[in-house]
């Protein structure tokens, strides 16, 4: 091994000396580096960097794909910001994010902590609770849409056994959003719990032993040992969930199409309508840019707010 590293330093020393000559650059594989980089650079130019720049440009243009694009300054932004639907969509999106946090955050965490305590049967809980995540989201939504059916749905049938209901679920402006979040939580809990579970295997058992010797009960051990040990991943998952819920589309689109009475119209639904129903691509990108800005700001604020907590 010593010989190996020595020869390695010799070769790098040589290239250092003759780096400038183009012939050497070719011989040492400079060209093949470019060839290897081409797929990445091209796909990113076309499908990542390009569209991001183009989005910024588009938001200042009037573009409907028919007439030639023209610069309109801030007109798209002022149009989007004064759209009477925007406050409702913002409130709905925030409401969805809040509900998703309240329903969807504790369930997988509790599940993961509990499963990690089960030695022999833990995997079974794992497999079963991950099953909903395997169901393609569209299939799950179509299935749940029928569960929520006010006349002959499964939920009203079950609640009927206890003399409750019938409820209008997706047809009710008050229940529609919680109903959508319930399905989203059902679909997402298994995958999140697996990620927590993987993090929990890294918790050192000596800490539990020490806490127990200090007289900490089971709940205090969970609260003071388990949770702090995995707080890094908890914080990340929380932020990713927030960013995801702010961009929710499929669930409200397929469940209610934004109804009833716009009670489930989210920002992304609004962007979809601007672009693909009204054909106003300028307004759609302007709203996208605004949402992206808010999300970036949210990430930065979140990072600073939680930094102290995650490093101590």
């Amino acid at each position: 091994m010593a010989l190996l590293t020595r020869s390695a330093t010799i070769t790098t020393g040589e290239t250092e000396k003759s780096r400038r000559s183009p012939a050497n650059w070719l011989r040492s594989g400079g060209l093949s580096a470019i060839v290897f980089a081409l797929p990445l650079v091209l796909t990113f130019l076309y499908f990542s960097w390009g569209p991001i720049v183009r989005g910024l440009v588009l938001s200042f243009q009037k573009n409907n794909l028919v007439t030639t694009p023209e610069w309109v300054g801030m007109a798209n932004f002022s149009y989007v910001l004064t759209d009477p639907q925007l406050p409702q969509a913002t409130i709905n999106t925030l409401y969805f994010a809040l509900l998703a946090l309240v329903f969807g955050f504790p369930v997988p965490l509790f599940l993961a902590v509990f499963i990690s305590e089960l030695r022999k049967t833990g995997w079974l809980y794992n497999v079963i609770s991950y099953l909903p995540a395997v169901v393609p989201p569209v299939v799950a939504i179509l299935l749940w849409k029928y569960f929520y059916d006010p006349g002959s749905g499964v939920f009203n049938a079950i609640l009927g056994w206890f003399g409750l209901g019938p409820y209008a679920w997706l047809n009710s402006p008050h229940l529609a959003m919680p109903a959508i979040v319930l399905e989203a939580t059902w679909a997402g809990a298994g995958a999140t719990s697996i990620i927590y579970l993987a993090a929990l295997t890294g918790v050192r058992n000596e800490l539990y032993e020490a806490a127990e010797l200090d007289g900490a009960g089971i709940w205090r051990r969970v609260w003071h040992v388990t949770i702090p040990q995995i707080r890094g991943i908890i914080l990340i998952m929380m932020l990713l969930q927030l960013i995801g819920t702010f961009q929710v589309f499929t669930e409200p689109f397929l469940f209610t199409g934004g109804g009833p009475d716009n009670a489930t119209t989210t920002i992304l639904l609004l962007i979809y309508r601007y672009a693909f129903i009204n054909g106003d691509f300028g307004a759609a990108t302007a709203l996208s840019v605004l949402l992206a800005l808010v999300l970036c700001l949210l990430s930065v604020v979140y990072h600073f707010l939680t930094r102290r907590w995650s490093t101590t």
Partner: protein
Amino acid sequence: MTAEAQERGIISAMDRRRPLVQYGLPVIQVLLFIGVVIAGVGPLLWLVKSGLSTSQDIIRGPMELWPSGIQWHNVPDAWTQVQIGSYLGNTAIIAIGSLLSTLFVCTTGAFVLSVLRPRWGPLITGAVLATLFLPGVISLVPLYLTILKMPVFGWNLQNTFWAVWLPQAAGAFNILVMKRYFDAIPRELIEAARIDGASNLRLFTALIVPMSKPIIGVVALLTVIGSWKDYLWPLLVLPDPKLQPISVALPRVAKTTDLSLQMSALFLAVLIPVVLFLIFQKQFLRGVGMSGGIKE
């Protein structure tokens, strides 16, 4: 995990002797198990039941078991009338194509950034990293316009599978994960291969890729799951019903199909991922768990 690590968790052997824990724990365990089964298996069992019922039975008694008998013919009917087979085929083509393009781009890209390390490498790494922090919504509309008319070439990729395959490959997360894995390969091995006269291509195919099978597996799994679940993007770029994957086709077909056939179709759409999951559950759960570790 080793046997020693399994010896104790939060609850110790001493706790287990306390009556509250001794009897309380199994009760919670059973209750939770019932909860998990109802949530995880219940909807799927209901789907099986409804898929084999008449529409009237589903509407009249959503929780009754086949009052007018089991309708086995629903499944072949759904297969032929709803054309589930061809939509599943499209889904598979989309998933496999996305998988290949993603793996090709992220292994070659990570190889350059991690192993070849040209002077302009950090610039690309930085530009890739930057896109990770930008939410996807910002590029949705311009990406759609790019597909309608590719800059420079002027091609229209709408209604071709390339429209789904190619954008999938421009994922920063996969490239950075792959790069980080390549970074951990000892440099001595790479230098030794160089001294043996291996070209960059040979270095890539004979050393780096074989050594990175675990991470390639994880990226492949996550890509396939992602493309299987995708809805909005294929909805936008594949308006032709003949090319649509099952996720896009089902909501469209659902509006015009009989309820019982609709349920059979949903059942068929769930069957393959569930069976694949049950067969490969260990790899599946490990891969998904690893994705969390990577995010951290």
